């Protein structure tokens, strides 16, 4: 018998084993952290989607603050 760990690793195996209610509550906690970090509520740009519109304006971060941004990086 194959274990979830063999297929998806320990973190996802733990998630797989939760009940829907437990996942809902854990996801709500992630949601709160994400918003606290100033995460955007826009879906990720998805060029595969038939609804993708490159000219559509985004909502920006939830709290209007700059949120997480890159302040230094390599040339690549």
């Amino acid at each position, binding site marked *: 018998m194959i274990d979830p760990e063999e297929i998806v690793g320990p973190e996802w195996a733990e998630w797989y*084993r939760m009940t829907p209610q437990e996942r809902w509550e*854990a996801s709500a906690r992630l949601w709160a952290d994400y918003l606290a970090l100033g995460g955007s509520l826009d879906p990720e740009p998805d060029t*595969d989607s038939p609804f993708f519109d490159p000219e559509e304006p985004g909502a920006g971060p939830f709290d209007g603050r700059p949120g997480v941004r890159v302040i230094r990086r390599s040339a690549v």
Partner: protein
Amino acid sequence: MGGQACVLYGAAQFSRDTDLVILAEAKNLQRLQAALDELQAVVIAVPPFEQKYLELGLGVHFRCQAPSCAGMRIDVLSKMRGVDNFPELWERRTTVQAEDGEYEVLSLPDLVRAKKTQRAKDWPMITALVEVNYFRNQLAPNPAQIRFWLQELRTPGLLCEVARKHADVARLTVGERPLIAEALANDPAALEKSLAAEERTEREADRAYWLPLRSEIERLRRLRRGSSTEANDP
């Protein structure tokens, strides 16, 4: 029906928007509009929120402006390729009781069918949705679950395992899903290739389905941009 449903079924940990599948009837749209008004949700892209566009199969995209949910996206759909009509979906729905209320979500088989799109990101989601169901129920499955796994599993090792444990049902499934023959032969390498081909075929079918709908979206975009340019002209 989208990301939130995937969270409940175990294939995602987080979703930034809410997707609703609804019955596109005038009275129901009025009720939904009243709910959207409470959230101060406004349409942010084409098409407008009208029954004819929902019946056509287009999604309507909203962004909430009420302080409690400012910025949150809501997408509304009524019709999806390869998926039954709303009354059948409603009949088969899953109801989840959470601390903050009850949620009605697409049944798992319907969600899997709805995810068979041209979008690359939907396919790992399908894989995970079926895996979770398999791992949860593998020790005491019912016949419907065994059929569902044989029809929808996308993990070669698990497909071989199911075919070995339920060979009689697997043999009956080969007609509708030929790659089950490779699972019965315990050939994960061949399965890997066949699963990739199966995905390519479905994604191509979805692209073909969306061709005329994309044209309609483009037409509506041009109309909207034309009218907004006119409105901005001095």
